[in-house]
């Protein structure tokens, strides 16, 4: 099946909320995602606090590609493929550290921390000094930008600036990265684990699927979580493909909070600074694969590792000016609840892994369109919360907006600018009368 606009549109009927699970398992779709989604989106690389000193580096991925993010001596940040220009070997296999050079251990080509090629064995007698060092530096990530300490990269030089890309989501991100004067920092330790399922399952859950929590997380909610109903919160969907759902009141997991007074003071100051958003217990996704849990101080990247496999990378944040006891309490709490052994998180892996297994082996199951119709037609403008607002903690507007944007990226040969006219797809390649408009998922 040719992956043209017509076919892809037939799989993603975001308007009516019918999505074909082919998009979670087809290897050709996965390959096209690497080019059109991960090759053009702003992808989270690291937080400023993870690479504070000159020549500090953090090794990550942008889509399937290994990338090094490096603090430069002048304080700036560079990012480049962690791939030697000679034979494509990794030039660094440590996950983080501090170094002056990256040497490929295959033939010894050596690069400086700005990615420049600075050493080639036998340059004079084997290459006769004819090799251009200048033309063989590490492949740079086309754009680097940061938002309040969150560093993102983009392989597409034509992509709009990060701030435009984040759009209305900035309002919600501010609620937890900008609620104190000194901002946040990431605690040491990136927790990484493997799910045999498609990365979008996690991204779409964080974009707005709080509906899963009362069932999926029944055991942990029973023990220490907040009891909640749909009307205890709200959700927002954004045209850029981002979304967040939130509870209005912070409900602490720990009643005998050893940091009672600190939390109280901090909470008051945060409310003064950014209002109600400071208290949200929430989940969000910035399209495509950067998510977070405000209220649980946790940020996430969903790294694709194949059509039916992804890695979760989980980072825990604390207020930069938090006292030692608060940092320790946050670390213990994050280790207890989130991550592969987290009492909340373990049940998510069960769902995602089994869905991945069904899609890998099933045929009939792959033909059945999944249902995303919850809350269709019930969003409105809200006086305070930007985005399309839904008056419930539960709702699938975020998911529909996510897959709408996914489709636009996938069918557009140029960077899919969001058009002024609300009905048109970005990139404007969708032919008239295509199945997506007629609502024809199989």
């Amino acid at each position, binding site marked *: 099946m040719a992956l043209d606009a017509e076919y892809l549109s037939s799989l993603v009927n975001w308007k009516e909320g019918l999505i074909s699970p082919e998009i979670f398992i087809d290897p050709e779709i996965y390959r096209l995602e690497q080019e059109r989604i991960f090759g053009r989106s702003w992808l989270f690389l690291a937080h400023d606090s993870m690479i504070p000193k000159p020549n500090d580096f953090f090794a990550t991925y942008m889509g399937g590609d290994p990338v090094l993010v490096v603090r430069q001596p002048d304080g700036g940040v560079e990012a480049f493929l962690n791939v030697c220009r000679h034979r494509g070997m990794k030039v660094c296999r440590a996950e983080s550290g501090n170094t002056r050079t990256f040497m490929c251990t295959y033939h010894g080509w050596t690069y400086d921390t700005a990615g420049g090629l600075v050493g080639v064995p036998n340059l004079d007698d084997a290459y006769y000094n004819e090799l251009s060092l200048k033309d063989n530096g590490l492949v740079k990530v086309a754009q680097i930008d940061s938002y309040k300490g969150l560093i993102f990269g983009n392989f597409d030089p034509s992509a709009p600036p990060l701030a435009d890309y984040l759009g209305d989501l900035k309002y919600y991100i501010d609620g937890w990265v900008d609620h104190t004067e000194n901002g946040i920092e990431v605690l040491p*330790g990136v927790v990484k*684990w493997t799910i045999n399922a498609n990365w979008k399952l996690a991204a779409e859950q964080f974009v707005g699927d709080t509906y899963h929590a009362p069932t999926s997380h*029944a055991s942990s909610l029973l023990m220490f979580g907040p009891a909640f109903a749909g009307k205890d919160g709200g959700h927002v969907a954004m045209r850029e493909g981002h979304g967040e759902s939130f509870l209005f009141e912070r409900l602490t997991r720990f009643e005998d909070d050893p940091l009672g007074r600190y939390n109280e003071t901090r909470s008051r100051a945060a409310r003064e600074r950014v209002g109600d958003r400071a208290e949200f217990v929430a989940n969000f996704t910035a399209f495509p694969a950067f998510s977070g849990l405000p209220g649980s101080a946790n940020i996430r990247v969903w790294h694709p590792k194949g059509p039916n496999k992804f890695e979760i990378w989980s980072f825990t944040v604390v207020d930069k000016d938090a006292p030692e006891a608060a*940092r320790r309490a946050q670390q213990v709490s994050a280790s207890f609840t989130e991550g592969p052994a987290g009492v909340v*998180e373990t049940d998510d892996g069960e*769902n995602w892994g089994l869905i991945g297994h069904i899609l890998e082996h099933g045929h009939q199951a792959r033909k059945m369109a999944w249902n995303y119709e919850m809350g269709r037609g019930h969003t409105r403008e809200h006086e305070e919360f930007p985005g399309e607002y839904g008056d419930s903690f539960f709702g699938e507007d975020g998911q529909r907006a996510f897959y709408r944007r996914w489709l636009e990226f996938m069918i557009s040969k140029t960077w899919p600018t969001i058009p002024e006219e609300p009905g048109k797809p970005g990139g404007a390649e969708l032919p008239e009368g295509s199945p997506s408009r007629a609502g024809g998922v199989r």
Partner: protein
Amino acid sequence: MTLDQIAGVRDTTEAMLLQYRVEQFLYREAQLLDGWLWDEWAELFAEDVRYWMPLRKNRLRRQRTADEAPQGIEIALIDDDHTALRTRVDQMKSGQHWAEDPPSRCRHLVTNVRVTPAGGERAGDGADGARSAGLRVRSNFIVYRNRLETEVDIWAGERQDVLRPAGDSFRIAARTILLDQNVVLSKNLSVFF
């Protein structure tokens, strides 16, 4: 110096007896876990226990430190006190913990048990002064998990325990679990180690 002096025991017979008791304790623990007797298992731990599974890292060789376990604040895979451990046990029994319902079939294999009397070799940073009045015991493990129809996980690693004498048995006063994986190669770690 004789072998017994090096081992820090009066004689070989005593060392063998100690080794035997420690091994039997660890085997019994494994049996409780594999038999889903989590309440009884939790009772093996001292009230002041730290049950800790730090992250394993890929670092530049020159930036490796002697200890695998970090000294400062760092996110861990597990960092539980006794209350947290009991909460996990309660979750197992809740009937709504879907990651373990139906429960995983596990086989805990414990090998290479090395016993050092109190005051000997450092067993790990999970063991601070309060817990040091005990035996330092290192052991290797392989945990095989088979779940639902065909799901399999195999985890290997080392446990660094501090065992405190309690009657004619022991309580686990500290446990550091070094899982031999950088990226955890499974969908969760919903079983005990």
